[in-house]
């Protein structure tokens, strides 16, 4: 089924939507069935209202079953009491039974003060059920309005958080912040979309609530119904992109010191218009994107030379690790594009625990059982070589472009270590170092040498890269050992 015209009209309007409108825009026309519409709070007396401030529903998205709920900020600020919590828990329980995705529209000030500890208990039950489903069925949160306190943790436990430009998320709101620590701050400055697209809390930002709803639909188009199902295969495009030698070569400069935007490489390799970048403004030196190759959903992980030269730091490692585990949980093959000089050196990174953060990425790649394809575009040095889904970590197929450099470190650095005395004694140390660096690069860093060692399976020309990926994905279609829905998607 395709999106109908009226829904698109509403998507173009930028005003806020009611909870019911969110559900109707998410689901195929006429498919929404509401749940628990008569429940009320037993503690609010005359102020109680049927539904208790949340609408639970089942429905269909592109013909596939989903479960959803939408909180109503116009009733008691969308606050959560036990009856409200029970509706969310019931939606989650049913999704687990049906092995179907969940979309939650979160707008809530948090625990309802009048309901006391029963409200906190309600949040605890929502969290527990969310975690129980983690890595088993896809869970997407769309934050509309404000998500405070428990309402901020509830999305943070799910696979994706989408915010619209006017939404905000925080554990403690501006009022409490002012009282507790004397900081004067607005809701937007504290936890607006501009904050959380950079903090990593939010994966995608939409221009309006309607666009945020459609973003959730788009995310679902890449995801299987559950960990036990295959991701949705689309028809392969009639004329798949055939990047000529010139296309990828024009994007990726041969000179190692010049940078480029690796997202252009991702777009050139993926089916036309199929790329959806995840967390584009967080840890920009690592690109993560959902896309399709030959109609089949995949997850791209790529070093971004345009930012920090593609070095891996704490945030980049953590971002990629979380994305790799998500792809592994839902059976999306991993396509890894490598162009990194290494991990970021220095006191700031070591002090921030880059060893532990880098280990998360190593662990995630080594653990993943989905098909894993790696392409070294220009360079892969040292720890970054191993970490970026090397053959040794279990990559199924590894290719390198013919003039890629692979080794322990770059030529200049290696020459300085190995030939320290010769360089110091030379008449022109700078030129001598350059000469020795070039010799080292030639003798020790060539992709051909890596292929002789067997750590690279094949050398491919840039123009053959897409064909390499297609054939690798075909060879391993549907293969993921032990995908059992037992490894949750821990919010790394």
């Amino acid at each position, binding site marked *: 089924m395709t999106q109908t015209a009226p829904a698109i009209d509403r998507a173009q309007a930028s005003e806020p939507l009611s909870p019911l409108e969110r559900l109707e825009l998410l689901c195929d026309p006429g498919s929404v069935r509401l749940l628990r519409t008569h429940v009320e709070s037993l503690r609010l007396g005359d102020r109680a209202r049927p539904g208790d401030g949340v609408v639970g529903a089942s429905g269909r998205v592109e013909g596939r079953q989903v479960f959803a709920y939408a909180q109503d900020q116009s009733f008691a600020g969308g606050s959560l009491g036990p009856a409200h919590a029970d509706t969310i828990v019931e939606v989650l329980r049913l999704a687990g039974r049906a092995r179907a995705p969940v979309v939650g529209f979160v707008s809530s000030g948090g625990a309802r003060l009048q309901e006391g500890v029963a409200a906190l208990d309600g949040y605890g039950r929502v969290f527990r059920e969310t975690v129980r489903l983690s890595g088993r069925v896809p869970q997407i949160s769309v934050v509309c309005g404000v998500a405070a306190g428990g309402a901020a943790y509830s999305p943070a436990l799910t696979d994706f958080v989408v915010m619209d430009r006017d939404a905000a998320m925080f554990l403690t709101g501006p009022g409490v912040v002012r009282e507790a620590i004397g900081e004067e701050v607005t809701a937007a400055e504290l936890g607006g979309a501009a904050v959380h697209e950079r903090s990593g809390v939010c994966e995608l930002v939409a221009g309006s609530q309607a666009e945020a709803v459609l973003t959730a639909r788009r995310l679902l188009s890449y995801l299987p119904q559950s960990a036990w199902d295959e991701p949705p295969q689309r028809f392969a495009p009639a004329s798949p992109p055939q990047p000529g030698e010139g296309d990828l070569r024009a994007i990726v400069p041969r000179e190692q*010191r*010049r940078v480029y935007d690796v997202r252009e490489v991702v777009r050139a390799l993926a089916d036309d218009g199929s790329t959806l970048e995840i967390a584009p403004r967080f840890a920009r030196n690592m690109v993560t994107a959902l896309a399709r190759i030959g109609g089949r959903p995949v997850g791209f992980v790529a070093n971004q*030379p345009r930012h920090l*030269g593609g070095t891996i730091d704490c945030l980049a490692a953590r971002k990629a690790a979380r994305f790799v585990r998500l792809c592994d949980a839902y059976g999306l093959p991993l396509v890894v594009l490598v162009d990194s000089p290494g991990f970021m050196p*220095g006191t700031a990174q070591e002090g921030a625990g880059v060893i532990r953060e880098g280990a998360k990425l190593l662990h995630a790649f080594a653990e993943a059982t989905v098909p894993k394809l790696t392409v070294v575009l220009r360079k892969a040095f040292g720890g970054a070589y191993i970490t970026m889904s090397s053959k040794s970590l279990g990559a199924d197929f590894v290719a390198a472009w013919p003039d890629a450099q692979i080794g322990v470190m770059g030529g200049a650095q290696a020459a300085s270590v190995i030939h320290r005395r010769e360089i110091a004694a030379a008449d022109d140390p700078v030129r001598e170092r350059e000469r020795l660096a070039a010799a080292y690069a030639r003798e020790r860093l060539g992709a051909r040498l890596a292929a002789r060692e067997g750590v690279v399976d094949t050398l491919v020309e840039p123009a053959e890269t897409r064909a390499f990926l297609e054939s690798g994905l075909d060879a391993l279609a549907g293969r993921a050992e032990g995908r059992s829905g037992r490894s949750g998607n821990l919010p790394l």
Partner: protein
Amino acid sequence: MPNVEAHITGTVWKIECELGQEVEEGDTLVILESMKMEMPVEAEDEGVVKEILCEEGQPVSEGDTLVVLE
């Protein structure tokens, strides 16, 4: 208006903006050289270049303000 800061320790390779120039988010303002690579420093917001606080060839540390926008 936020200052545009060096995102990595290195040397100023090229200054790619002028005083009074209107810049868009994502425009390259300065290119640093670090780890043997050119590393563009981009505007995170739109604005007008009010001050340029670095010169080509100057070593800078991560967090140093390079350009002030308004």
